[in-house]
């Protein structure tokens, strides 16, 4: 019985590996001026138009936008700043999150 449980656990771990590998670097963008849900969508769209972006998640309360890139695809601060500006807002801070963490911001 124990062998079966260990086998199932090992199988599940194997299944998770490709998912984990698919998550590339993620970046935290602090966007100034963001204050309503309808405006948040414009920022999401502009950032999502960047080649290699797999996901964007906005926290309107903190003004933080998490951008998740594909594996091995970096995001430059210059490009992020330009896209935020095209959405009509201002990029205050840009940082790479450690470990490719793709969790949504709190």
């Amino acid at each position, binding site marked *: 019985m124990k062998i079966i449980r260990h086998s199932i656990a090992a199988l599940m771990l194997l299944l998770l590996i490709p998912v984990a590998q698919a998550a590339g670097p993620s970046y935290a963008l602090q966007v100034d001026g963001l204050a*309503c849900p309808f405006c948040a969508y*414009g920022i999401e*769209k*502009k950032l999502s138009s960047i080649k290699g972006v797999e996901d964007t998640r906005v926290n309107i309360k903190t003004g933080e936008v998490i951008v998740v890139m594909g594996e091995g695809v970096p995001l430059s601060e210059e490009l992020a700043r330009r896209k935020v500006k095209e959405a009509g807002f201002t990029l205050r801070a840009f940082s790479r999150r450690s470990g490719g963490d793709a969790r949504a911001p709190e």
Partner: protein
Amino acid sequence: MPPNSYRVILTKAVAGAGLPANGPGRNHMAVRGQARSYGGIFCLIGSVAIGAGNAWSAPITFNTALPVAKNEFLVREQFIVNRSSDDPGPLNRDRTAKVAVSVLGYGVNGKLALFGVLPYRDNELKLRVSGQRVSRSASGFGDLTVFGRYTVVQQDQPGRNFRIAPFAGVKAPTGDDNKRDALGVLPPSVQVGSGSWDPLLGVVSTYQTLDYQLDGQLSYQLNTEANNFEAGDVVRLDGSLQYRLWPRTLGGGVPAFVYGVMEANLIHQQKNRFNGNKNPDSGGTRLFLTPGIQYVTRRWIGEAAVQVPVLQELNGDALENDYIARVSVRFNF
């Protein structure tokens, strides 16, 4: 108008029922004669809103300075019912204007946005002429308004922003201004188009936080002559407060907001002209208070408001507004 209900036309209506006419000019002149015989048949029919050109979390009855993202489109559909039935004169006039306003916004870049506003109108004027109740009506696409708005001041801070954006454009005579019924050519207040090119300009400002938003707008529309009729120029001052009612406490992500809205619209129109002569029974000043509500999500906004006239200082024998009701939806593409 704005953007979205972008302006209000205070049209001095010509109650021309029962008069034969071969063209707009003749009809208007004949109506002038009848107006004199009735001791003031002309009436200030009321506001016909041309739809808001705005498409953000924003005021319901006028524009905002919030941005349209580069190469992105916003769409708004607003439905307006404008009732005017309190007639101080003997004609017992009753006017209903129903308008469906389509607004398309396009972001050229983060600061410059272009807008197109196209109304579909259904106008009806009922009045008593020679002891008989008559009804005159018209429906169809109205005049297209196009304008650009450029942000000259932008101050972004965490969770808030402040913007000032002048705008300028023109209302083009795309709507039919020569509609007729069995009684002849319809008066300007019933026509769906004006026939005139009318430039407009103004400035809008927005202060937005996570809890509330303030907007203010000053605009001027220069109305020009067509068919021997020239509506008076319109200047208006608008203000809006949108306050977040729900959620009371913000969590993570992007939750939908419910805003309580209170707006004020101060609108002044100069006197209309027929054949170059001022109509003493046209133009005036109105002040509306407009309570409303908005439900704002990432992709769409639903909203409703009622403009209640609290002050109507109109010239001559004018027909006052009862109310203007608005329901609209906006979409992010």
